[in-house]
C-alpha cells in the first residue's frame, strides 16, 4: 500500500482509541458517505451504523463473515388464570399499552416501552415478561474495517434498544478509531448515539435547510459538551454557502470542505467508496481525518 506522509503520521502518533460521531440534523447531507470514507482512510477502524431505520453504510462497505444477533425487548404477558381483573396495571401504564376488556387483559406490544412496571406492581403476580424481536445487529469485516449495522424491523416505532446494543461494543477496548454514523434529526436516538463519543463531526450542505438543522445539532452537541467541527459538503465554488457563513459567524471550526462534484456524486450513488477509487478523494478524506484528529487534540 502506498502511504502518504499524512497517513504515516496518523499511525505513528497512533490515535489508539477514539470514538467519533458523524451527525447532521438534516438528512441526506452526506453522513454515511463521510463516515465510510473516513473509516477506510483510517487504519483498523470500526464503523457503526446507528441509523437503524434506514441503514446504508453496509451498502458501501459490503462487510463479509456476517454474524447476526437479534435484538429483543421485553413485553408483558398476563396469565388469565391468575389475573383477578383489578386493572392496577392498566391504571399504571402511561403508554396506553394495556387494556382490560371482555374479562381479560390485552397487551398492545407496539405501544409498550418495556419499563417492566406492570409486572412489578401486579398484586397477583399474574404478569410475566417475554422477549419480542424488534430488529437485529449485524457485525462483519470490510477489509480492515470492522462493520456493525443495526436494522430495525418494518413497522416498529422505536429503534433505541438497537442503538444501545450497537454501542455496547464501545465499552470493549479496541485499537483504532470508531466512527458512529448517526440517524438524522436531533431526538433521543441521536443523543444516545453521541453519548459516549470523544468528538462530533457535523456534516452540512450549502442550503438554508442545512444551516437551520446544523444550528439544531450545534445546540445538541453543546448541551452534551462535546468537542465538534463542521464539514461543508456539496460545496459549490463561487456560490453563497449559508452554512459556511454560519460557522464563521459562530467561530465554529471548519474541518473539511467537500466539493459538489459529479464524479463523487456518481460514485456515491452507486454506493462506491470514493477514497478507494481515486487518489484525489483519498487525499481529500485523509486531510479531513487529519483535521479531525488535530481539532480533537
Amino acid at each position: 500500500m502506498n502511504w502518504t506522509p499524512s497517513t504515516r503520521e496518523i499511525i505513528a502518533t497512533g490515535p489508539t482509541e477514539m470514538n467519533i460521531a458523524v451527525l447532521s440534523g438534516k438528512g441526506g447531507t452526506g453522513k454515511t458517505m463521510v463516515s465510510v470514507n473516513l473509516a477506510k482512510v483510517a487504519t483498523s477502524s470500526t464503523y457503526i451504523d446507528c441509523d437503524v431505520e434506514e441503514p446504508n453504510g453496509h451498502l458501501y462497505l459490503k462487510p463479509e463473515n456476517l454474524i447476526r444477533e437479534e435484538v429483543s425487548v421485553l413485553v408483558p404477558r398476563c396469565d388469565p388464570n391468575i389475573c383477578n381483573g383489578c386493572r392496577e396495571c392498566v391504571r399504571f401504564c402511561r403508554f396506553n399499552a394495556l387494556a382490560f376488556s371482555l374479562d381479560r387483559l390485552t397487551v398492545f406490544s407496539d405501544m409498550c416501552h418495556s419499563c417492566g412496571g406492570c409486572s412489578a406492581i401486579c398484586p397477583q403476580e399474574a404478569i410475566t415478561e417475554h422477549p419480542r424481536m424488534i430488529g437485529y445487529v449485524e457485525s462483519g469485516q470490510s477489509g480492515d474495517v470492522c462493520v456493525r449495522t443495526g436494522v430495525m424491523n418494518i413497522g416498529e416505532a422505536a429503534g433505541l434498544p438497537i442503538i444501545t446494543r450497537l454501542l455496547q461494543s464501545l465499552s470493549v477496548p479496541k485499537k483504532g478509531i470508531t466512527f458512529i454514523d448517526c440517524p438524522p434529526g436531533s431526538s433521543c436516538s441521536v443523543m444516545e448515539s453521541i453519548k459516549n463519543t470523544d468528538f462530533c463531526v457535523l456534516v452540512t450542505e450549502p442550503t438554508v435547510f442545512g444551516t437551520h438543522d446544523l444550528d439544531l445539532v450545534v445546540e445538541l452537541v453543546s448541551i452534551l459538551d462535546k468537542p465538534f467541527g463542521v464539514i461543508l459538503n456539496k460545496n459549490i465554488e463561487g456560490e453563497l454557502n449559508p452554512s459556511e457563513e454560519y460557522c464563521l459567524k459562530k467561530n465554529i471550526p471548519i474541518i473539511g470542505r467537500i466539493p459538489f462534484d459529479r464524479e463523487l456524486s456518481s460514485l456515491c450513488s452507486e454506493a462506491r467508496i470514493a477514497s478507494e477509487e481515486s487518489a484525489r478523494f483519498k487525499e481529500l478524506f485523509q486531510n479531513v481525518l487529519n483535521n479531525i484528529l488535530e481539532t480533537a487534540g
Partner: protein
Amino acid sequence: MKQLLILSGKGGTGKTTIAAAMARSLNVKACADCDVDAPNLHLLLNHGGVEERKDYYGLPKAYIDEDLCTMCGLCTEMCRFKAVNVGETTTIDIRTCEGCGLCEEICPSRAIEMRPVVAGDLRLYADPNNGIFSTAQLRMGNGTSGLLVTEVKRQMIDASKGIGFAIIDGSPGIGCPVIASISGVDMVLIVAEPSVSGLSDMERILDTAKCLKTRSIVCVNKADLNSELTARIRDRCREREVPYVGEIPYDPEVIRAVNRGLTLADTECSAGDAVQEIFKKVTELLFGRAAV
C-alpha cells in the same frame, strides 16, 4: 379533507422543496410540517397572519424531592432506562427518563413525583391569503416525537374547516414520527433518490406504508444524476404495483431558489417545470381528476 403526506425514507431527497412547491403552485390552504426533529418547511412557506404558539408537554417526567429521599436505591434498581443515579444524592436524568412512572409508584418514602415537562413548541399560522400552516419543534434530545406529530396534524385539521386539500411534509426514517404522520392520510408521495442507498430506503418506506395500509406513489428527484438507478427505481415501482408519477432533473437553480426563500413554483427552471407535471398526476390520483 384529502391529506397528502410527503415522505422519503432517506433524508435529503427533496421532500420539503417539493411540498413547498406543491403548496404554492396548487394554492393549497392547509399545510403541516411533521418533521418535528428538524422542521424546514417554514423557511419556504413564510406564512404571515396570526401566529399562535403553544407549549407541547410530552409525558410527565420523574422529579425527586431530596428532603424526602432516604437513598434506599429501589428506584435505581427498578428503572429500566438507567435514568436514576445514586451519588451523594439521588438524581434523575430527565433526558433518559421515559416517563413510565415506576419509580413514583414504588418509592417507599413517596419522594418521587411525575411532573409535566415542556418537550417542544407548537405553532399555528392562520392567514387570510395563505391559509393554515401548522408546525412544531421538539426540544433537543426528546423522545416523544410521535405524539407531537399527532398534535401538529390535529391542530392543522381543527383549523382547516371547509378546506379540501392538505399537504403534510414528513420526516426521514420509518419509525415513530413517520408512523404517526402516516396515520389518517389519504396518500403518501415518496420522493426517491437515484442511488443504491435511496433505492434501499425507498423499499423500506414503501413496506412501512403498506404495513399501515396506506396508498403510496413515487417520484424520483435529481433523476439524471444516475439514470441507471432511476430506471431501477421505476422497475421496482412497476413490480410492486406502486404508481410512478415522474422525475425531476438535478438543477442547481433549486439550491439558489431555496436559499432565497423561494419555492420552485416562484422560479423559472427545469426542475420547476418537471414538478408541475408530477403535481398534475398526483392530484389526478388523489382526487380522481385534475385539481382546479
